[in-house]
């Protein structure tokens, strides 16, 4: 789910790049020096993880992992995803270099919202709901990413409106798979390595249960 080069017009491409740069700097500011290596390795792991294909019927899908990025990195997820998006565009042509701003907004803002949702749910209900909270984070992140994609295509030109509708529809199976996988991953991480989460909102009692 990336926009290639040449599709967006100059207004959309440059304004999204400007907005994205602002959020990127804000996100980067939130990463402490001692968290730099964690962010870098999570970026690399997100990059590798998003290349893994999950079979769906006769075909396969690859995960976006934006929800997971938010869950693990919180505010820093935007910067990590911006770098992952740039590397994907430069190394594998997944998305265009001239559409990096739009592609980063598409991935990064849903990650921030997923982080807020996941940690909000966990703070309120404890770690026993990590799997459904992760699933909500995963599903919402894909849904929002596809809506951002549709929005960018929609404002680029009337001829892309049907493509935008098609793009959102095509993401429904990805949303379901991403929700399931992110839910299981969040549950696993909360059980095995809760300190990997962005900020552990779990109380000591929660950790014991």
């Amino acid at each position: 789910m990336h926009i290639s080069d040449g599709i967006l017009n100059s207004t959309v491409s440059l304004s999204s790049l400007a907005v994205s740069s602002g959020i990127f700097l804000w996100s980067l500011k939130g990463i402490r020096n001692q968290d730099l290596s964690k962010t870098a390795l999570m970026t690399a792991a997100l990059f590798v993880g998003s290349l893994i294909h999950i079979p769906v019927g006769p075909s396969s899908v690859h995960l976006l992992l934006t929800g997971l990025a938010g869950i693990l990195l919180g505010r820093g997820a935007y910067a990590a995803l911006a770098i992952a998006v740039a590397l994907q565009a430069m190394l594998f042509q997944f998305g265009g270099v001239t559409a990096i701003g739009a592609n980063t907004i598409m991935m990064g803002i849903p990650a921030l919202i997923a982080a807020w949702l996941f940690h909000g749910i966990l703070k309120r209900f404890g770690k026993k709901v990590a799997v459904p909270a992760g699933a909500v984070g995963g599903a919402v992140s894909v849904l929002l990413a596809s809506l951002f994609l549709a929005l960018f295509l929609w404002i680029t030109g009337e001829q892309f409106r049907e493509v935008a509708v098609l793009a959102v529809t095509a993401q429904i199976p990805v949303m379901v798979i991403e929700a399931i996988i992110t839910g299981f991953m969040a549950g696993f991480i909360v059980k095995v390595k809760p300190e990997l989460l962005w900020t552990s909102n779990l109380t000591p009692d929660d950790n014991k249960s």
Partner: protein
Amino acid sequence: MNIILLPTWTLLPFFAVIALLLYILFRIAGIAGRSKSDHAIGQGDIQIPQQIPLSSQPQFSSPFFCNWEPRIKIAATTLYMFTAAFLQSLAAAFLALCFSLLLAVISGSEMKKNVRRVAQVSIFLSVLIIILPFTTSAETGDTIFKIHGFSLLTFNLRGFVQAITITLKAWSVVLLMEPMLFSSPLAHLSSALKGLGIPEKAIGIVNLAMRYMNVIATEASQMGLALKTRGFYPSCTKRSLSAMANLMAMLFIRSYERTQSIQEAMLLRGYHGRFLHAQLPHAVATDWLKGGLMVGAAMLIYFMDQLIWQ
């Protein structure tokens, strides 16, 4: 509006050509018919690339790109890419593609890699080529093809031309990726990014992420192989998805555990929030000349697009 009515059978060659082109693109891009050695786990399983194509040394040698001061090279090439992406006419997009192709040839970059990149981006864009002609609404002066018996199916030539223009623009950007990225050592690239005003922290993340990407990819392959030797076969069942999720979660946990030793190694080497960067060669007149040539070409094509071909 010029309406041309076509017989129903014309749909067959249209879709046959599209299917053939897609098949060829998938083959070139390496998505179909990959050899099993390309992946740790074979067809039908979790597909993890074994190697991310990164190298600490320039991957080819050409006087034009390899001796070019990296900051000017990145700035000029990026400006050219953005200009090419914003062109509006088919003729200008074609001209931009010719210039990019010329530079790709001059750069000495491996043509096979360039073709693979072009094929990869074309797979995404083929959706536009198929859909845009049928979704572009008709305006005065448009040429519309209608298929006999399918009154709702209208093929707008303007939409088709626009899809081809987008494809040519994307190709002209993609062809410059190898010359821009792989004609300098990685150390010079990160120094150039610093010189271009990219924040120190971001460069640190890029450097470390690129350094460990292959390590993590190899680890993912090994974990996938271990899963396979235990009789795992991926499917869309709850059990299979749970196993794959656990594999990926373990990948993140192992990566996280590695960060501790990396952090300690960084501190031992005197890291205090700043990375040391390689000394870049001083820019000479030739570097500025090359930059000027590229920016000049971009401006020329852009103004031709705006003033002549609009």
